[in-house]
């Protein structure tokens, strides 16, 4: 600015003063002066324009840096938060919305309580006929059965009749007789999947499929897939406690996930351990999520398919693997198996886990040591 002032000042004086003092002027001289003055003004405005352009360009370039964009929604009766790393909020939001749409679609297909879902269609036709289903529902039931086989029935997708007896909101413990009676309806081996016709058949009337312990993990997988398809290279999908992370954060670090303390006492001990996660999923099943206590005994929602009663050898089980459709059902199955058999199975399968047993002792798979930062459960 100062430099410009110096240049302008003498010219200005020259251009102004003769107009009032010397008259008449030659037309040619006046024209020349006019042109000179004109070009000076043009130069001035071009310069001004350039400064403005520069300012706008600087402004336009600054948001190019990558940031984490976050959006939450209540779907599948739970809070889902999706984070996407992007240099553009619009791009991130579009991808996040696609991911939410994918989760909504899965919810419509597999919701146990909705009369319109494919699952309720299968359940209504138990003992009657096979029901043709979508690829997604077929895939998730297939994965559930694989988990049942691996855990030797400690996870069972046909737990529905037992689950339906309990009400953890109203704190209703079912009659022992009712629990015993329904037990004969729980058996994943009586669930027939037919690949050719893409259909499912429950052999006994009264059998019920409940995908509550796998659908959220599966939904996290599908949401991540949708985000990747929409150009997001890094993000995190948290379907309640079923979390899947991919890529790295803008600071180049992996995503950090906290594992909830199953017996939180104060505000400061909410987290019992943390671990870094990238291109991996983590799920946790705990006896503190849905429960009630009668005469000092805790009744929670993780039922042992072999007894119909809450499994009582663990407080919390977290499983870490590539897919949410693995971590979600296995965290439930391992919870039922208990710490010793649970750790053994996880190590056999070469997936990682961290278990808090019924006395509060922490067990981890050997591969996990050093990767997880344990703060303790007090």
């Amino acid at each position: 600015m100062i430099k410009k002032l110096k240049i302008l000042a003498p010219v200005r004086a020259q251009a102004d003063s003769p107009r009032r003092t010397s008259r008449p002027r030659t037309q040619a001289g006046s024209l020349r002066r006019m042109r000179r003055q004109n070009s000076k003004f043009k130069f001035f405005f071009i310069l001004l324009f350039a400064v403005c352009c520069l300012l706008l360009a600087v402004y336009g370039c600054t948001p190019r840096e990558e940031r984490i964009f976050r959006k939450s929604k209540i779907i599948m009766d739970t809070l889902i938060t999706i984070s996407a790393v992007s240099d553009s909020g619009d791009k991130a939001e579009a991808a996040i919305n696609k991911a939410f749409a994918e989760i909504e679609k899965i919810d419509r297909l597999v919701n146990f309580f909705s009369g319109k879902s494919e699952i309720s269609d299968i359940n209504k036709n138990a003992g009657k006929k096979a029901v043709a289903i979508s690829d997604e529902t077929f895939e998730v039931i297939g994965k559930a059965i694989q988990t049942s086989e691996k855990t030797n029935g400690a996870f069972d997708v046909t737990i529905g009749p037992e689950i339906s007896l309990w009400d953890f909101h109203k704190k209703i413990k079912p009659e022992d007789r009712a629990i015993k009676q329904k037990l004969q309806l729980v058996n994943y081996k009586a669930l027939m999947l037919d690949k050719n016709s893409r259909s499912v058949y429950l052999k006994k009337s009264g059998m019920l499929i409940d995908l509550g312990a796998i659908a959220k993990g599966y939904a996290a997988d599908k949401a991540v897939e949708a985000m990747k398809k929409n150009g997001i290279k890094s993000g995190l999908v948290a379907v309640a406690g079923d979390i899947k992370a991919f890529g790295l954060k803008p600071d180049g670090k992996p995503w950090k996930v906290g594992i909830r303390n199953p017996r939180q006492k104060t505000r400061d001990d909410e987290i019992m351990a943390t671990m870094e996660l990238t291109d991996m999923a983590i799920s946790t099943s705990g006896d503190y999520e849905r429960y009630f206590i009668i005469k000092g005994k805790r009744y929670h929602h993780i039922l042992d398919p072999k007894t119909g009663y809450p499994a009582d050898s663990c407080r919390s089980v977290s499983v870490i693997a590539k897919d949410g459709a693995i971590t979600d059902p296995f965290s439930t199955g391992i919870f039922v198996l208990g710490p010793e058999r649970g750790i053994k199975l996880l190590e056999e399968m070469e997936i990682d886990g961290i278990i808090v047993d019924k006395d509060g002792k922490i067990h981890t798979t050997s591969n996990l040591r050093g990767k997880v930062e344990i703060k303790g459960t007090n």
Partner: protein
Amino acid sequence: MRLKELTEGTTIADKLLLAALIIISVSGFIFIKKAFPQGTDVIIEVNGKQQYKLPLNTDITVSVKGVIGDTLIEIKNRKVRIKESPCPNKICIHNGWTDKGAIICLPNRVMVNIGGSVGIDSQREDKPRKTIDAITG
């Protein structure tokens, strides 16, 4: 040339003033964009479905039907709160007045989002949890 007529009789100070005014107005535009990045709308969702989109600067009280009953949401003096809720623990009500982020009532499946639907992760907020991106369990 019109430009010449327009600028005839202007002094250096005039031009400097003009330049300063233009630069100030442009940077003002940038500043406003930076300082108020998103429109301040209040979006109310039930079970993930949008029920209301209301401006934060208009005082209003609305009722939405959730899965266990009606939640009463109040907007006043550019702040939002859940005034009444049928949920058992009333965590959403204890949240009190807020002008940013979200208020969630999970039992009734009600979510109130303030200031745009996509939140930018700020390193300054949520200090105790700054290092943690999500919690499992």
